[in-house]
């Protein structure tokens, strides 16, 4: 039996080897590629659940690659935050690859092999960013997943090419700023390891190089995670990519960038540095603007995927608002990073479901615009049901995940004492209601144009998408409600709340209860 300490590294290597195997096996037979990808990601998910279990109940995994002590070699560190993000990531990746079997056959019939190879590399890069404990290594993996994402977004051709190019230019600027920040940090500390940097940095907090490095990290990663003024690549990239890539982009890729920012600012620069300058207050304000801007722009859109993309801008605003408030909430149970981490999972569930449903409409009848969706509620009852569940979650109807995020966020705002943010959240809920109600209304209340006046009285033929595409949508849609109930009752069966507590304890922010 391989020790559990080996699992994080095996996870990466297995994924890498699978990518190469897809490439070679696909040369012999196209059918292998999907199967290999699916099985690999399934195994990875199981591994990541083991890791989460181990981290939660035994302690963090600290693995020295090549057998060198950390400041000399590279280190893989998995604590609760990593393990949690890893599970969320691989869960959505698994559902996406399940969904993509039929969808990719339909959309890119000639490119199946390379599609899955690049997809597997995307998953590898995301996992690598998540588990690494070395900043330069993080940069390398950020580049891997970015390159894979550029190619996957462009794979449909047409307008997607230009969207991907814009993403490439902006993402490269972000990565360059990131590596410049690494250079600044290296020149004053001589180290690249995160834990080591955290130990060396405290006397250097006044150093201008360190401050500039932090600023460069924030700006570089803000581009990658599409924070408001730097989001311009996002709407096009989200709307023209294949559906599962949109789901991954919105649900995981920008979240992993957020994770990188959280990791760098709390693990490397630590809370003491963040309290010196009001950077996080500034971030909270920017996030508030992003929430309103994203919601307003979403209302103006006709294209369903584009609307969802702008909604992603606003949802990233929620996460960043929670991160920005994390320093000022100390006393209550929902303080610290809890709302941000919750919303990472919740957003992955909701946006994954919504983008996959949007992809299903395109798969079935090439319907892009909201007005085209009339009467589909009767034709595709399961798909539209899942859509409705995810949509009411986005609005924030009580037992759903969206409600949980919002209520935790509102409590955090109350504790931070800035009631303008509360107004922003309530206004955004209203705007969410406006643009999602429009879609739900079109789906259920309006009748198809072609049919006669009283068509709704006739039995409508259901015309569902293939089962392999339907299952992920249904899982995600139902989880939107189930997960919300679990959050609300704080049932510790999946260890959800202990995760938040131990993350808060790790970074010494917020109030944390006992970790079992």
């Amino acid at each position, binding site marked *: 039996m391989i020790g559990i300490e080996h699992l994080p590294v095996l996870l990466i290597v297995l994924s*890498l080897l699978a*990518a*190469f195997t897809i*490439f070679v096996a*696909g*040369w012999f037979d196209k059918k292998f590629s999907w199967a290999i990808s699916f099985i690999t990601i399934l195994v990875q998910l199981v591994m990541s659940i083991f890791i989460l279990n181990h981290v939660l109940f035994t302690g963090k995994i600290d693995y*020295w*690659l*090549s*057998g*060198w*002590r950390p*400041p*000399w*070699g*590279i280190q893989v560190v998995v604590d609760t935050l990593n393990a949690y993000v890893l599970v969320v990531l691989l869960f959505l990746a698994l559902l996406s690859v399940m969904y993509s079997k039929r969808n990719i056959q339909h959309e890119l019939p*000639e*490119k199946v*092999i*390379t*599609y899955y*190879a*690049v997809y597997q*590399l995307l998953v*590898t*890069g995301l996992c*690598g960013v998540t588990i690494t404990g*070395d900043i*330069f*290594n993080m940069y*390398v*993996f950020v*580049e*891997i997943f970015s*390159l*894979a994402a*550029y*190619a*996957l977004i*462009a*794979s449909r051709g047409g307008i997607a090419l230009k969207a991907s190019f814009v993403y490439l230019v902006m993402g490269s600027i972000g990565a360059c700023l990131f590596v410049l920040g690494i250079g*600044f940090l*290296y*020149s*004053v*500390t*001589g*180290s690249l390891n995160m*834990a080591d940097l*955290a*130990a*060396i940095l*405290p*006397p250097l907090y006044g*150093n*201008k*190089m360190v*401050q*500039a490095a932090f*600023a460069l990290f924030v700006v570089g990663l803000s581009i990658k995670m599409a924070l408001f003024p730097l989001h311009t690549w996002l709407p096009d990239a989200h709307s023209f990519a294949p559906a599962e890539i949109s789901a991954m982009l919105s649900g995981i890729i920008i979240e992993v960038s957020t994770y990188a920012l959280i990791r760098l600012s709390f693990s490397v620069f630590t809370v003491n540095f963040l309290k010196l300058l009001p950077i996080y207050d500034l971030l909270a304000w920017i996030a508030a603007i992003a929430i309103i801007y994203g919601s307003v722009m979403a209302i103006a859109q006709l294209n369903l995927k584009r609307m969802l993309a702008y909604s992603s801008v606003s949802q990233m605003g929620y996460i960043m608002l929670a991160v920005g408030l994390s320093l000022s909430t100390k006393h209550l149970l929902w303080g610290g990073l809890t709302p941000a981490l919750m919303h990472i999972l919740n957003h992955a569930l909701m946006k994954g479901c919504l983008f996959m449903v949007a992809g299903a409409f395109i798969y079935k009848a090439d319907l892009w615009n909201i007005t085209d969706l009339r009467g589909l509620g009767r034709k595709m009852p399961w798909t539209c049901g899942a859509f409705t569940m995810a949509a009411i979650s986005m609005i924030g109807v009580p037992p759903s995940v969206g409600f949980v995020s919002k209520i935790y966020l509102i409590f955090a705002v109350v504790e931070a004492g800035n009631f303008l943010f509360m107004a922003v959240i309530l206004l955004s809920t209203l705007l969410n209601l406006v643009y999602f109600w429009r879609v739900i209304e079109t789906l259920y209340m309006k009748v198809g144009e072609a049919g006669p006046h009283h068509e709704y009285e006739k039995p409508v033929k259901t015309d569902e998408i293939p089962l392999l595409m339907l299952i992920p949508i249904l899982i995600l849609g139902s989880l939107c409600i189930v997960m919300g109930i679990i959050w609300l009752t704080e049932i510790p069966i999946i260890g959800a709340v202990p995760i938040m507590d131990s993350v808060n304890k790790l970074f010494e922010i917020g109030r944390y209860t006992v970790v079992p």
Partner: protein
Amino acid sequence: MKAESIIGLLMVILLTGLFFYIVEDVPPYGDPSSPALQLVRLDIRVDAAGVEEELNSGMIPAALVEALAARNFVAPSEIEEVTAGEWDAKIDKGEFYYEEDEKYYRFKKEGNQIEVYRYAPVVRYLEKGLEETDVPNIVTAVIVDYRAYDTLGETTVIFTAGISVILLLRRRGKL
């Protein structure tokens, strides 16, 4: 003038401002004792009284160990005097296959206090690289041994680029 040029100029001015802001703290160019090459000051100090004798006799002072542990640093295992008022401290390897200890801290007496410095990783690479890896070219040793995982990532980046271009451009053959 186009809007893009104006945005570009603005960004350039912003970045220039950033560089002018930080220039004072950039380590001097070509300095052989800069933090990246030699020693990092850890801002840990203890009173020299008593500690100095202990250091000179090769014992590990408890006050120093406490001060280091407060900042999550490993405790030294062996002390060795280099020159008057300066000591090298070594730590346990921690791995099973090297017997020797490795150089980690440098204690310097400054006035009445003993300051703690730490060696940069590079010192270790240059001193022990040949012995440990049998490779005279230290960069090769670093990229394929000390930081081999980075290089695995790097090879994956090239591979990703190759497949991505096939995904984008190739319209022939099986792929």
